[in-house]
């Protein structure tokens, strides 16, 4: 099975977010980056399917030069090769642009299955996978918790709301967006990291692929959210704060 896993590099979960001077995005200087966590579950699922059915796992990203480290991490965990569609503008591209880039690169090769995380931890539109499927003319299913492949079909457990699930069966090739928690993600081994150095990474410039970079949506302003409620912050030593809180809950809120 030829499996493509789309990965994105995002700011580390713990990074301090500072809105940049243009008020349109966050400053990325002096910030650590990591692989978008939902994508790590998609990669793990791809590796497990390859281990079961044979074939190849290709990690693909549309990102700036720094995103090469996310591809290296995927290779170290076991992806066979990687594709990097490189353009600084991908760092804050909208879902349509990102999907167009991924579609241009993946569309050139035969593919049986494409996996993505269900959303990114930065912009979080949660659309790229589905748009990519539509651009490639593939059927898709989202928020997948289990995949069984046999006879050219994928039998998937799809998560619905409030603890409900549903079985969706799709013919291959298809695209699935993977729910976080579907599996236990492996760590890269030392041997894996060594091997990754020799694995091929194909680089494209966005101009090589003739990608439509015209955004379908645009951020006008990025800002700190306004306080929805008047939060009363309690201060002091741990014991003082504990006493204050219990007193508030007993006599003000009257909930304990």
């Amino acid at each position, binding site marked *: 099975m030829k499996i493509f896993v789309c990965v994105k590099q995002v700011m580390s979960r713990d990074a301090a977010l500072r809105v940049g001077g243009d008020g349109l995005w966050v400053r990325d200087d002096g910030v650590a980056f990591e692989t978008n966590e939902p994508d790590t579950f998609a990669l793990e699922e791809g590796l497990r399917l390859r281990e079961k059915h044979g074939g190849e796992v290709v990690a693909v990203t549309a990102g700036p030069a720094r995103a090469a480290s996310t591809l290296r991490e995927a290779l170290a965990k076991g992806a066979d090769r990687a594709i990097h569609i490189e353009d600084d503008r991908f760092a804050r591209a909208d879902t349509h642009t990102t999907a167009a880039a991924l579609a241009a690169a993946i569309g050139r090769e035969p593919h049986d299955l494409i996996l993505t995380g269900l959303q990114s931890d930065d*912009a979080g539109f949660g659309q790229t996978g589905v748009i990519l499927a539509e651009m490639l003319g593939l059927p898709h299913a989202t928020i997948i918790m289990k995949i069984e492949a046999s006879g050219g079909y994928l039998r998937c457990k799809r998560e619905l709301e409030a603890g409900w699930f549903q079985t969706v*069966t799709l013919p291959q090739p298809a695209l699935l967006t993977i729910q976080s928690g579907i599996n236990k993600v492996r760590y890269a081994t030392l041997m894996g990291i060594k091997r990754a150095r020799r694995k091929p990474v194909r680089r494209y410039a966005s101009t090589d692929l003739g990608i439509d970079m015209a955004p379908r949506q645009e951020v006008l302003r990025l800002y700190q959210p306004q306080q929805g409620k008047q939060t009363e912050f309690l201060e002091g030593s741990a014991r003082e704060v504990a006493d204050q809180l219990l007193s508030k809950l007993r006599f003000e809120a009257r909930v304990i």
Partner: protein
Amino acid sequence: MSVLVVTEHHRGTWHRISMEAVAAGQQAAQAMRCSLAAAVVGSDVGGLACDLAHKRVSEVVAIDHPQLAAYSADGFAAALSKLIDDLRPRLVLFPHTYQVRDLAPKLAASVGTAFVSDAVGMRFEGGEPIFVRQMFQGKLHADVVPRGAPPHIASVQSGAFRAESAADGDEPAPVRHLAIALGEGDVRSQTGQPYQDAQDAVDLSAAKIIVSVGRGIREPGNIPLAQALARALGGELAASRPICDSGWLPLDRQIGSSGQTVTPDLYLALGISGAIQHVVGMKGSKTIVAVNKDRGAPIFEIADYGIVADLFDVVPKLIEALGESD
């Protein structure tokens, strides 16, 4: 020119966010000075269409087809593409549900247009909508505008608009049936009936007090600390998604869009950042207390009482103080 609201229903009843989307549609149609159409898609949806016609809308469009009895991305996208061709709306609004997450990006891509997903607010400048959405796990907000030719598509987050504010019309709106042709081969997926995993489900919705833990609990060995606080308060223990994903607590104790929705008297969030997916499951709680090291954590936006501190310092003191007062 019109605004179109696409509703969602399951087995004959409205998805609760549907009427919130209708309320958003009414606001949009007024601000954009155009008519409002509301669509219902499925099989045997005549009754729902008549019900929807009581709302203040210009018309209800029912797309009724046996192939649409169960949701499929192919079937629903084909139906709505046809409706968009027919109606040429400027704006299409959806409730932000799991189904819409599956459907709307495909519809937008097939029409070649924008989809602004999961809006928490909407305002208008010069008759054009500007959507507010959360970014960076809810830590920042962004004003987002669709670009390119209409129709523009957007979805509204649960709770962003009030269902009660969806006004009724003076008289029922006309219901129009739009016929579509869907063959066997047009829907590539097969979907089964919804089911729940067999489990001794804990019903947290009845709990008066809930102590809930997030990533800040750091490791499974620390869960008993939160458990001890829950016990001292006479409450139930719950968690955000990452904790249940890691298997530190069973899935039936998960609060949020994929877990349970709760409205206890007291919700004590320990080390929970307050991502949207969690907040939708607990924001209706009467009193919310948040303990988090990060002053910028979005959970503080909805908390009544906030403690910016390490939960490992504060929780033992809370247990201690509760023990003394008994």
